[in-house]
């Protein structure tokens, strides 16, 4: 690494100081379509510190990936309208010139995509694709250096015989190895922020656990900030320090992981918890799905966007749920736990109605 480049990176890291490395504030992403303006993300705010992991959960189309792609500036300027603020290590990313944005991508911020088979180029060797990622941000590195770095990274993510497998094509790798290679590519420039978009969705369960362990080890080693996007609460429980639950483009619950998983205050989060299958459960036990479908992002329902599917609407007086959008405010459990719900006493409802269904043994203990 040249001195100049090192300075550049330090500048990014230094300005963060004790503050969060990534600060997303009131982010709104809209796409003009033939049927009207589609609001994919609306008023989203969150922060991630160095060494911490934020888990973003939600259904397909809830805006998880769209918001993360905005962090990398990967939305086409012509086909999207983005407002709000995204600060990466103190640098405002929205409105940043394409050439400066390119310096961040894959360098200070990198992204791991789901389905590594599709996300890796089928016609280029794994090693070449890794080396390319290295060389973009190290223009003075020789091909040899880049190849050595690629082999080193493949070794680091646990690919056996990396000096030979470096010349394989993606289709010659197994699913787990491809995802490892993807992670190696994401980490090749020591990014301060790593965004993992459903990194384990396409993998079988035993491999999933290996990949999650690997991500955790690497995070400890690099002390990077990590965002993990998933719809799997198991992954969240395993990995995340903070959790952001998204629904229809909005944050509906946000707080420390343990807090959210043990004392969720928003009926949508309850629904997510209820629909997780339990390994030890009776095979006759039914999963409890959330009824209905996610709302249209073109014409979202008035009021709380979850109200058409919410089983607890009747506990809120005066049809408030279908007329007024609740604010994302601290609930009864302190300022760290934000929720977007009109329910006055969600903890009581959760313990009385939801907990007995999803975890009867916990209720009995109490």
């Amino acid at each position, binding site marked *: 690494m040249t001195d100049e480049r090192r300075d550049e990176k330090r500048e990014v890291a230094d300005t963060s100081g004790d503050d969060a490395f990534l600060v997303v504030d009131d982010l709104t992403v809209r796409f003009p379509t033939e049927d009207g303006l589609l609001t994919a993300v609306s008023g989203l705010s969150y922060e991630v510190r160095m060494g911490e992991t934020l888990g973003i959960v939600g259904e397909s189309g809830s805006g998880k990936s769209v918001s993360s792609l905005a962090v*990398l500036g*990967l939305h086409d300027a012509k086909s999207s309208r983005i407002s709000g603020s995204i600060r990466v290590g103190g640098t405002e990313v929205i409105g940043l010139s*394409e050439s400066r944005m*390119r*310096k*961040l*991508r*894959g*360098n200070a911020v*990198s*992204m791991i*995509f789901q*389905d590594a088979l*599709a*996300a*890796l*180029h*089928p*016609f*280029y060797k794994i090693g070449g694709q890794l080396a*390319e*990622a290295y060389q*973009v*941000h190290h223009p003075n590195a020789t091909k040899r250096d880049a190849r050595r770095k690629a082999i080193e990274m493949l070794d680091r993510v646990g690919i056996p015989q990396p000096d030979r497998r470096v010349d394989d*094509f993606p*289709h010659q790798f197994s699913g787990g190895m491809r995802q490892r290679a993807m992670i190696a*590519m994401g980490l090749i420039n020591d990014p301060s922020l790593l965004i993992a978009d459903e990194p384990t969705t396409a993998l079988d369960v035993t491999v999933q656990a290996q990949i999650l362990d690997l991500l955790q080890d690497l995070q400890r080693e690099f002390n990077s900030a990590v965002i993990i996007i998933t719809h799997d609460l198991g992954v969240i429980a395993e990995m995340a320090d903070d959790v952001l639950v998204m629904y229809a483009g909005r944050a509906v619950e946000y707080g420390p992981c343990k807090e959210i998983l043990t004392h969720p205050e928003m009926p949508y989060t309850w629904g997510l918890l209820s629909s997780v299958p339990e390994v030890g459960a009776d095979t006759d036990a039914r999963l409890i799905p959330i009824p209905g479908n996610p709302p249209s992002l073109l014409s979202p329902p008035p009021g709380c966007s979850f109200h058409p599917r919410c089983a607890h609407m009747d506990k809120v007086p005066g049809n408030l749920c279908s007329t007024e959008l609740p604010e994302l405010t601290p609930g009864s459990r302190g300022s760290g736990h934000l929720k977007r719900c009109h329910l006055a006493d969600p903890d009581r409802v959760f313990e009385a109605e939801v907990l007995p269904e999803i975890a009867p043994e916990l209720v009995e203990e109490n």
Partner: protein
Amino acid sequence: MFAYIVKRALAGVLVLVLVSMAIFLLFWYGPNSPAQPICDQQTSNRCSPARLKIYEERLGYNNPVYVEYGKFIKGIFVGRDIQVGSTPRHCEAPCLGISSRTDNFVSDEMIERLPATLSVAFGGAFFYLLFGVPIGVAAARRRGTVADKALVSSFLTLSSVPYYLFALMLWLYLTVIFEIPIFSHTGYHKLTENPWNWFTGMFLAWMALGIFGCTQYTRYTRGAMVEALNEDYIRTAKAKGLASRAVVYRHGLRAALVPVVTIFGIDFATLLAGTIITERIFDIQGIGWWGLEAVRARDLSVVAATTLFGAVMLIVANLIVDMLYSVLDPRVRLS
């Protein structure tokens, strides 16, 4: 790989056998005697039934079709003697027979015609790609914009004009009406004798093929490119921080070329097999023109030779395209 090529070559030979049989059967069982045009020509249109019979005997049409077909095949492998008038002539293997119209060996005539056709084919194909691929890439990058829509619709309009009309108008305006010097003396001149004359003689034919063909290649390239640019690996390439030029060309075009190469292989073979309209309009004495003359004169040997030549070109092109496929796409393994 080797076994694959052998298998494909055998299949190709089978195709050639079927094609050649079809030609002979058409000559023998067609509505008119194949000797009629030659008889007409050599008797100044006073071809009596008796004379026709003499011509038929001389050309072998009185024999059963399988006997003559056998002679033809034997000539290809070991050569044969052919009776022309009263003198027998020895035709060395591979013997494609003697033209009944000119009394020359068919293989000699073919060798004479080949350079003109090769010139048309290589030049035309070069301009197909030179115009088509970059315009297609540019359109794909600007997909949905006014420029893209204007380009797509104007190329669609152009490609719906019949080719012969397009080529004829090009020739008429550039050569006859405006007399633009570089276009004004079309025709084939030997490259080895005068490269400049060769170039200017062929240039208009290349432009006609190139402009007309590029409308298709723009469409293919644009389509393949639009598809490639929507792939996940393009997003990965962008996320690496690559410049958009590298994303589009190194990652996008590399993937988009595979289907384009496939179509190109077949189109190029068609050009090699002879371009009748191009050769006629731009006065190029190539394989296509030769074949056309032979059909009009019912010149069996030449018709068989040009048809088989076209078939060989297509078979070889298909094989090369399939082999190229496995080079371009590492996921494809030949078996």
